[in-house]
């Protein structure tokens, strides 16, 4: 018992900041969102309309939840539950892998296993640690919901539902850690599992059966495959039924049993799935420093492109539903207009709104390319490359070129997806130019972020990663939500995204775009040129 306590205390101590950020972050997010929701959708009529639109469009349900009436609690549960469960799930799987496979990989687990603690007790301690983290998360979340003015009974049901789905994800994370030899493998499988759980219940909601009054939906069977789906079945604030949670609870219990069974038979450091042997010769891509920069950035490119394609598809495939909703209920059109804040045609405004998100995705991708250069430098592999006949200036220039290419690919892929999705629109021909214009309009802002990140890399190398992400994050919030949050104009003007041209039926104002194009190119050029003087700065 004392040994377990020692291991548990070590885990809590090591995670105190990280878990505090996750748990408090989720609770604060819930509290802040509730306040915003009651502000925006204070009236029952507003909620009825937005639920009507969501049920009519279906796709919106994927990103929200199961509609269950217009009461304060039920409406909040619909908007927020699945999203919070997703975050709690990621917290749990990362926790599970961090204390098991990661420890084994780094060799620390071996040192612990050699003490009287043995091979099994550390896993027990990780289970207890993960369970405690989810209990605290559920409790704090319930309190945050109550504090925001929701009724206590339903708030606790919500907290318990998050906690139990967290148990299921924790168990899966531990299971994945048994399967793979690397923490990277275990983390990717468990993140995929969490995302799949989120999407499955989303498909369940979208494919569900709506009620007569368009205020409720009975989810379809895919929701039964997801721990988050079972959380939604509790119907917090309305039915307040905890019995559906027995299923994810049983899932977690069985999986943890399997984990202990595997742990007790396998060798320290071994895994259920053997590591694959790779190729012994390099392929044709790895034959130049440009090929290397490209190859290092392809995984980054693929994930952001997937996001761009999904957003592009949504931008135009939603248009018939939006039109339909607008014809059926003019007040719905009014709500959408208010949310978007534009007087252009409803379809065009929708496209512009979605492509501003594509712009953020492409900018993030470009920032990550700049960050990759820094990671190469810190890791020491840049030193290997620069020890060969690769000039410093060309080395960074190639990262810049890769950055430009990835921006172009994300934007082009999203434009193609948008055109493909326009097939179902009333007038596809008219949407295509809007899509192309909207996608192209994002290019200048993306170049600004690429240039800025490389500029930081060149002059304040240590700050590259935090500054890169912070700048793009803050700019995204200011550019997209600034106007809705009614921030002062000069603050909003700081965000490059705010200056991206907005397509408006052939009379688009491109001035902001040209300015940003000039700034972006200049920043990139200064960064690359500065490599003439810059030494390698490998220290973290």
């Amino acid at each position: 018992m004392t040994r377990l306590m020692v291991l548990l205390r070590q885990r809590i101590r090591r995670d105190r900041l990280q878990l505090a950020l996750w748990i408090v972050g989720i609770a604060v997010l819930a509290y802040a969102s509730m306040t915003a929701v009651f502000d925006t959708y204070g009236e029952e009529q507003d909620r009825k309309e937005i639920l009507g639109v969501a049920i009519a469009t279906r796709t919106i349900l994927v990103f929200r939840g199961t509609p269950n009436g217009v009461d304060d609690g039920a409406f909040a549960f619909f908007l927020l539950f699945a999203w919070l469960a997703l975050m709690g799930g990621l917290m749990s799987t990362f926790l599970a892998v961090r204390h098991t496979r990661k420890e084994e990989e780094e060799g620390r687990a071996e040192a612990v296993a050699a003490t009287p603690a043995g091979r099994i007790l550390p896993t027990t301690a990780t289970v207890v640690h993960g369970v405690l983290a989810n209990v605290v998360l559920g409790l704090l979340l319930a309190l945050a919901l109550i504090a925001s003015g929701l009724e206590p009974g339903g708030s606790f049901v919500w907290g318990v539902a998050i906690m139990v789905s967290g148990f299921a994800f924790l168990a899966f994370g531990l299971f994945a850690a048994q399967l793979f030899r690397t923490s990277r493998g275990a983390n990717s499988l468990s993140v995929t599992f969490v995302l799949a759980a989120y999407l499955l219940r989303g498909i369940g909601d979208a494919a569900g059966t709506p009620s007569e009054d368009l205020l409720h939906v009975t989810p379809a069977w895919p929701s039964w495959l997801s721990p988050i789906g079972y959380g939604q079945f509790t119907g917090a604030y309305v039915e307040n039924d905890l019995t559906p949670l027995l299923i994810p609870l049983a899932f977690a219990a069985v999986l943890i049993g399997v984990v202990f069974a595997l742990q007790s038979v396998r060798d320290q450091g071994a895994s259920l799935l053997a590591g694959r042997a790779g190729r012994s010769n390099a392929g044709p891509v790895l034959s130049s420093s440009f090929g290397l920069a490209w190859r290092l950035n392809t995984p980054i490119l693929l994930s952001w492109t997937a996001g761009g394609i999904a957003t592009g598809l949504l931008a135009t495939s939603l248009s018939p539903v939006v039109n339909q909703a607008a014809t059926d209920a003019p007040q719905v059109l009014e709500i959408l207009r208010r949310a978007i804040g534009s007087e252009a045609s409803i379809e065009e405004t929708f496209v512009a709104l979605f492509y501003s998100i594509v712009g953020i995705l492409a900018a993030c991708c470009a920032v990550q390319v700049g960050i990759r250069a820094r990671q190469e430098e810190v890791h020491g592999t840049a030193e290997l490359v620069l020890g060969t006949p690769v000039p410093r200036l060309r080395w960074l220039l190639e990262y810049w070129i890769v950055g430009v290419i990835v921006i172009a690919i994300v934007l082009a892929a999203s434009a193609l997806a948008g055109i493909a999705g326009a097939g179902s629109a009333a007038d596809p021909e008219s949407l295509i130019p809007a899509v192309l214009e909207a996608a192209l309009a994002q290019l200048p802002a993306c170049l600004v972020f690429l240039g800025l990140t490389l500029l930081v890399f060149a002059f304040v190398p240590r700050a590259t990663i935090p500054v890169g992400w912070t700048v793009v994050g803050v700019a995204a919030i200011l550019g997209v939500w600034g106007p809705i949050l009614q921030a002062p104009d000069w603050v909003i003007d700081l965000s490059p995204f705010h200056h991206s041209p907005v397509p408006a039926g052939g009379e688009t104002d491109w001035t902001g775009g040209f300015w940003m194009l000039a700034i972006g190119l200049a920043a990139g050029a200064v960064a690359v040129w500065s490599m003439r003087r810059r030494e390698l700065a490998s220290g973290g």
Partner: protein
Amino acid sequence: MTTVISTRGLEKRFGRTIALDGLDFSVDAGEIHGFLGPNGAGKSTTIRILLGLARASSGEATLFGRDPWADAADLHKRVAYVPGDVAIWPNFTGGEAIDLLTRLRGGMTDKAAYRDRKQRLLDVFQLDPRKKGRAYSKGNRQKVALVAAFATPADLYVLDEPTSGLDPLMEQVFNREIDHVAREGATVLLSSHILSEVEALCDRVTIIRAGKVVESGTLAELRHLTRTEIAFVHDPAKEAGVTALPDTHDLVIDEGRVRFTVDSDRVADVLPDLGRLGVQGLTVAPPSLEDLFLRHYGDELAPVEEEARA
């Protein structure tokens, strides 16, 4: 004899830390040069300046008579480099990393010859090229860098503590490869704090401490500075004759043997006296570099400046 590496008054400061404090040394073509010093002496910093990865704060460094900072890329066509703490890409296999580095160095012109050399090196270093970088131990990462370095002929090999992660068997393999490239006429700069390695391989050594050269020369020259140890079987009857020997130092009689040291250039003068005494089981041991090191640093166990690799 042409000079391959030369530095004059080389200085490097990181903020207020002085990493190199007027370093002067040179390496001639075809020489295996040992670059010795404790951690933090400035070995890696010097090497990074010589490769144009860092810039000297003042002073002058040349590589093949050219400026390593301004002409870095061009000079690197003639150089193979193994960094001190080898990092390789976690998601590439060792084989991929070796091929990539070879191609970057332009060593793929004769593909068949390269393939043979690579395979031979993989065999002698016993390296599995199909494992991902993240799965390699420190020693195996070092082997990846060494195979990449030796797989393409170079005029100059710059090796920063290349054997620190290798086991003794692999050190032998490494020594053979160094011999191999030296016979082909290459110049080698080998930094180390493993003295036996330098002693076995190097023609000349430079010893640095706190960013300054403290000794430089051939091993024979440096040995003049130290004392040779002489030992033989103790015979109580001859004790008076032994204590009367001139120029001896640190005389001890222990475990049945007499042990003392003499200045290395005085050894020949002592031998006739020993002959007259008729000593048994005589051994004459030349000083090891350990002795050289202890002489330079033995009295300075105080912490030296932190390794200046910002």
